[in-house]
């Protein structure tokens, strides 16, 4: 079973060479690792490789094949790329232009202010929404000169991470 795995900016090619219970040989970009791997807690793996002890924690991310992965020294965003993901990626890059025009936030919060209305023209860089989270306010700006197509939220609403807030076209 071979996959490509995206970790940060790197695209690694990964293959299971053999497996016998907790012992496995896995190839990453042509380099073979003989490992002893055990899930020790929910989502945490202990890996022994040539005697070295690694602990890797895997947390589901936003998409079904996206993960946040913590080794004990770094955090990574990791994605499994299979045929379906490749298809989605190609679609997404075609759609990219429009996707960029949907304003959302990486964290949950509360809508403080929406200084624009639907149908109103906005200049690139103009603030279209202000979000407050944990005593810190952040302003989100229009990426283009355009028109406010749709406003999905109201002032005072609580919002989730990555929720579409405002569409500009």
């Amino acid at each position, binding site marked *: 079973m071979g996959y490509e*795995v995206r970790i940060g900016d790197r695209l*690694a090619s990964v293959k299971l060479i053999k497996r016998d219970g907790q012992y496995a040989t896995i190839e990453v970009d042509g380099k073979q690792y003989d490992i002893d791997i055990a899930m020790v*807690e929910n*989502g945490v*793996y202990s890996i022994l*490789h040539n005697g070295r002890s690694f602990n890797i924690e895997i947390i589901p991310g936003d998409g079904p094949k996206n993960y946040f992965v913590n*080794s004990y020294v770094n955090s990574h965003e990791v994605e499994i790329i299979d045929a379906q993901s490749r298809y989605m990626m190609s679609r997404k890059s075609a759609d990219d232009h429009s996707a960029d025009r949907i304003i959302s936030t990486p964290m949950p919060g509360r809508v403080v202010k929406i200084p624009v209305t639907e149908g109103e023209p906005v200049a690139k860089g103009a603030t279209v929404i202000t979000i407050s*989270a944990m005593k810190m306010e*952040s302003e989100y700006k229009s990426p283009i000169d355009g028109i406010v197509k749709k406003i999905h939220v109201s002032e005072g609403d609580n919002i989730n991470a990555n929720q579409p807030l405002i569409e500009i076209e």
Partner: protein
Amino acid sequence: MIANRGEIAVRVIRSCREMGILSVAVYSDSDRRAKHVRYADEAYHIGPSPSRESYLNGDKIIETALKCGADAIHPGYGFLSENAEFARKCLAAGLIFIGPDPKAITTMGDKITARQTMIAAGVPVVPGTQQKVVDADAVRKIVGEIGLPIIIKASAGGGGKGMRLVRKESDLISALKMAQSEALSSFGDDTVYIEKYVEHPHHIEFQILADKFGNTVHLFERECSIQRRHQKMIEETPSPFITPELRQQMGEAAVKAAQAVNYFGAGTIEFLVDANRNFYFLEMNTRLQVEHPITERVTGIDLVKEQIRVASNQPLSFKQEEVFQHGHAIECRVSAEDPFNGFMPSPGLIRHISEPNGLGIRTDGYVYEGYEIPIYYDPMITKLISWGRTREEAITRMKRALYEYKITGVKTSIRFLERIMDNDDFRNGIYNTHFIDEHMDELMSEAPRGGQIFEDMAVIATYFDYITKMEKVAMSDFTVTQSCDNWKTYGLKKNLQRI
């Protein structure tokens, strides 16, 4: 009753429990599941999630306290802790306010009055005006005396609001106008004053403790210069910067400052110390500080218990000459934020926590597995305190503890704090309040640590996790698809992938 939330509410309840005092928590809508509600003996709802409708609603808090028969209110820090009006209302309602006399809060809360009081008491203050500054003439006059650069500050202010640094004479008038208008809009009062700007200062504060019988002691200093945007991030005691002589002088000045306002309870005198080790009174915090645990660690004194004893009219149980600094303590504030993405707040669900433990380690936090950090309050979720016989041991121990500390589900500042512990200037104790700004590039460096192998192991574990779950899905396909339609199998598949 603890009129607060988060780690400080839990902290206060712990000391109550040790003293055999029943504790009462209050909570807002989004804090029903918070640890202080679970840990207290009693808990009462006081309003909606935004602070001003709950934790800042003094009348509701007092009403709740009276209804449940509470004897006293501990305000923690933040929220109503430095609100003289609230303190007065508590007293008027027959409740003990665990803090100083409201008059002391008022005096220290107005910065110009505080400066005047300190000058009268012989405590050094930063050169500048003693009175409010209204017009351009007054500004020019004082600049003529103390020279540039200066800072214009709001008298009712705090936390950087209504503050303007002026380095050039030509900016003076516009800066004055802007400071006044910002002061008016932030505090409803346009009174401003002027202080000489101290270059590359250290922010060093002294913990003081006083009873109602005239005994005032200090519990030495805390070095709080590791700050980002006027927010402290790391504190330590003793300060690596000050000398024993300076420590004694500053301690005496801190005691004088507290005595000047007939202070009782726990309080903190903040000083600026310049590169030549001249020190100046900056302000007094008339409450417990976030960073109080490092003082507790080196002196052995439980500050919350002392607050409660003073509030119940007991004298201090020790004298100045009985207090010593044993070893070295450091505190790191851990926040739910993404340091590598503009310190963006990161509220959300805590999936997993492994807390550090063992010799010389203390944590004061309030989050637990399955808890959802609300969007309404401060991003600080836990404080990690390390102690060592020497500063070096405290630092290596802190590094070890940060390495052990795992919080997942939300982004935290742990990795950023680790990098500060690794910084040579920090390790050598050579830093001032500009430390984080000056070292930002190095602290933000995305260079992978530990080498390629850690990254490959992350890839391997994720891959292994994925194919193992795929196998399970394949097996369930075999047994389930016979009698259930495909749509359900898909749902099951999705679920398994999520487990």
